[in-house]
């Protein structure tokens, strides 16, 4: 029997992978993908809660999260392209004009 806890554990694992990805990978595109992973972890959470609570708010929310994630991905790609046109590289280590 798969319970809500299982979904939460799965979601936490995906969240962890995503966070580790954001913090350790240096390629912008992979960081972007890791962020998308976190969004999907949230989606799993929302759907699991929605099922457990027997109401649809969670599922409605998921639809919006998916859309927003797509919009963010689009904007992210656009920003990366703009940067690439000027700099010809997309490694975060080399993006250092402004001090952190």
């Amino acid at each position, binding site marked *: 029997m798969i319970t809500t806890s299982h979904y939460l554990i799965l979601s936490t694992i995906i969240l962890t992978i995503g966070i580790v990805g954001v913090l350790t990978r240096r390629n912008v595109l992979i960081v972007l993908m890791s962020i998308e992973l976190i969004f999907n972890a949230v989606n799993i959470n929302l759907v699991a809660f929605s099922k457990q609570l027997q109401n649809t708010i969670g599922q409605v929310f998921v*639809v919006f999260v998916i859309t927003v994630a797509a919009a963010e991905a689009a904007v992210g*790609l656009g920003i990366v392209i703009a940067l690439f046109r000027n700099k010809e590289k997309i490694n975060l280590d080399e993006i250092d004009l402004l001090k952190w």
Partner: protein
Amino acid sequence: MPKEYIPILLFLLVAISVPVLGLLAGKVIRPGGFFFRASRNPAKLTPYECGVDTEGNARDRYGVRFYIISILFVVFDVETVFLFPWAIIYNKLALFGLIEMLIFLGFLIIGYIYVWQKGALEWV
């Protein structure tokens, strides 16, 4: 021996046999395999038998156009996600739902017109 494990055993057998059989079949019928000689037709040995020949390494830079197309695809593709829940309760929402959805689609069309005007749909 507990009977409950028999399905698992069967499942394992099937799982192992599928790739083994598949690879074996490939080995038997491919050119230069068990039945056919390799030299009969050199085109048979290329990765894609029909179509354009591959050129260069796959890990090359792609034209920036592809990114723009993919961005547009992602955005417009995902918007359809709203159509499914709407379609399911379409009867309940009736005319109101139809008008709301038309407004939503109107916004999408505005986006499309904008993209068009900007020339992002042309392949330069």
